[in-house]
């Protein structure tokens, strides 16, 4: 009964809800449209503004004004015929003149190199780059050069060679062909003086020296001189430090020592650098 009585009201409510929904949709649409319109208005007013600014810029930068500025400050002139290159050949002709200067420097260095060739040194020095040439000056040069000359004959103080090696550390660009020669030198050194490694080790780390010596002795039967060299280089070379510590270990194995020797070989260019540096240093001093 009650339900039946409220039915009409229910209809009205349903209709009202439906109409409201429809109205909401149309309201949404109207809102969107309004937003779109305001955006369009914004765009057109922005365009107007852009046009205004362009006009102002164009007016302030008018040809007469540019001309005045050019007269007062810039002083630009029309390009002349010589400033235009007709083809690529003309461009090459223009660039050809430039390398003349560096060529001269090269020849100068070459003459230095020939001087060195005359010297009784087993290594031909590389054309070390200039900064290296400068740094390898007075204090190091004579000693290192002497070292190079004496190497095949006499042993020299450990501390000096050590110093030279440190210097070599600084240098990074070395050439392979030289490294081979340097290797020979190094090898001959080691053949003469197997104890050198020990000495080096001592000077650097006296505590470890005994152990190192022992390792060397144990390895000597297989590879008489390499381990010592490896050690020496290990000290000079930072990446080789791991091996150094490994070597410090008493239970040093053959494999390890062999490995270290390989590393030593690979990093042999360093002494070469030293040699070249040394000679250079001497050379620079000579005149």
């Amino acid at each position: 009964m009650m339900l039946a009585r409220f039915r009409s009201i229910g209809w009205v409510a349903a209709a009202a809800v439906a109409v409201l929904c429809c109205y909401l949709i149309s309201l949404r649409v109207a809102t969107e449209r309004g937003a779109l319109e305001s955006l369009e208005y914004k765009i057109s007013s922005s365009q107007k503004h852009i046009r205004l600014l362009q006009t102002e810029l164009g007016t302030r930068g008018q040809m007469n004004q540019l001309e005045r500025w050019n007269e007062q400050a810039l002083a630009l002139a029309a390009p002349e015929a010589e400033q235009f290159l007709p083809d690529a050949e003309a461009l090459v002709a223009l660039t050809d003149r430039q390398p003349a200067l560096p060529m001269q420097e090269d020849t100068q260095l070459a003459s230095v190199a020939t001087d060195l060739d005359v010297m009784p040194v087993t290594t031909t020095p590389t054309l070390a780059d200039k900064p290296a040439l400068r740094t390898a000056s007075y204090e190091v040069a004579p000693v290192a050069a002497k070292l190079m000359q004496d190497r095949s004959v006499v042993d020299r103080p450990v501390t000096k060679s050590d110093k030279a090696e440190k210097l070599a550390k600084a240098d990074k660009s070395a050439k392979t062909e030289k490294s081979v020669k340097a290797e020979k030198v190094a090898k001959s050194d080691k053949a003469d003086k197997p104890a050198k490694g020990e000495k080096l080790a001592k000077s650097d780390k006296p505590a470890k020296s005994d152990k190192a010596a022992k390792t060397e002795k144990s390895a000597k039967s297989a590879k008489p001189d390499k381990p010592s060299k490896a050690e020496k280089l290990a000290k000079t070379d930072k990446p080789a430090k791991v091996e150094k510590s490994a070597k410090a270990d008493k239970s040093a194995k053959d494999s390890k020592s062999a490995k270290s020797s390989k590393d030593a070989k690979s990093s042999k260019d360093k002494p070469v650098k030293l040699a070249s540096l040394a000679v250079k240093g001497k050379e620079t001093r000579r005149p």
Partner: protein
Amino acid sequence: MTTAPPVAKPTRLHVPGRRQQVAALSRERLMLVMLLFLAAILGIVLKIMYLTFTGQSFDDRAAGLTSLPLRPDIVDRNGETLARTIDAWSIGVHADRLLTRPEDLAPQLAVLMPEKTADQYLALLKSRKHFIYLRRRAMPELVEAVNALGEPGMAFAREPERLYPQAELAAHVLGWTNLDGTGVTGMEKLLDKRMTDPKYAGKPVTLSIDSRVQAAVEKELAQAMLNFQARGATGIVLDVHSGEVIALTSLPSFNPNDPGRSPPETRFNQAITGVYELGSTFKPITIAAAMDAGVVTSLSKRYDATAPLKVGKFSIRDDHPTKRWLNVPEMLVHSSNIVTARIADELGKDRLNGMFMRLGFGEPVSIELAGRGRPIQPVFWARTTTMTAGYGHGIAVTPMHLAKAYAALMNGGIMHPVTLLKREPGAIVPGTRVISPQVSYRLRQFTRMVVLEGTGKQANAPGLRVGGKTGTAEKASQGGYARKSLVSTFAGVFPVDDPKYAIVMMLDEPKGTAETYGYATAGWTAAPVVRKVVARIGPLLGIIPDARKDIPLEDIKPLIWHPKEGEE
């Protein structure tokens, strides 16, 4: 209170059915009201629906606000704006709504806008008129200052205003509009119909002018005008193949933004309106006519220039007497009047005048601008008239005529109509043949020789291969020629091996300076301007200076006789 009314109380009548009647009536009324409400709601709903579907709303109002059909821009061939309509401020006053006393306001206005006196402002303010313009095209600063006076009767409005951002640049080409936005002169006037056509609203008009070239021409000419204290100067650069005017200037110029303030003589367009006897620049035209007609059969044929030529009571003399026999190339190089007169005489009046007519010297030049000058033709062609017309005396044309003729003579012999509107690239340009290509080639060789060895040496822009001819004419004055007032002209083309642009520079009454050793002739005044202008505009127009390129001159050079060392 206590007493009851004696009369019978009108107590409620109990009529059976009366109650129902009232109830029925009220129900009726309610129904009526409800129907009215319903009708109103229905009306509103219908209106809403109508509005929803027809959409007469903000859209159109916004459109109405933003896109008032503005007068379209005028741009140069590269799209640089030369004329544009902007929103400017205007200042007006509602004289009937003033709050401050006019006596106080008038002096303040006179300080801010000094074009009128305080008394004049007072008269305006007291007129009680509803609206009076005080200033149109006002600067925003001025508007701010006037607004700061605090008078509510002042009216500020934004109005479309024509602005020429480049000021004096190409003023004679552009012209200007009046305050109502109607073209008064120049292209503004010519294009008025197109400008107000809603079909073209918002679409700029592209002129053939290149504003960079125009600026260079104006600058160099203004400099030369100053140096030589010339009365005026004209410069034209013309595309020889399309007839497009790349630059057109007439100095002194005016500022189209405020044309009223410039002296009236500045508005005279010498390039289009002014007619001048252009002197020796006519010689190549005469030679072209003679060669085309077969009068000059051989380039090595020599003509007597040993003494001034006497015809009747006239005597024709050379400005640079060579006192020997000259051939045609030498005649141009030394600019010999005598030889030209002889050739013109041989050619005859009809053929010479025929060439002039073919080059359009009989009528105003066909260009968009108004006020085109009509050439002055000889009324009666006597024998001497033919002779003098051969070297550009006795016939007066506008500089534009000359530029057009040179373009036609040098481009291979085809004359194109000149235009100030940009032609579409690749568009077919109408043209008529005026001379044969062979003669055109010879003329290019001759004019190149003039620049290399003759009177036009100072026009030689290195690497840009200028070929042309100088012309110095005395101005006609009462009963003869004024020897001191000259019109110095240089007309030529560049690059001469493959002509692209014709150039004419004219200085009106230049005075010699110390630098020119007192000479005011074209070789000393107009030719250097050409050199400077061409050196500047050549690369701009895509002509790369190349010192190794030139027109072949091997067959011409041996014809030019040079005095040996030590000889006169």
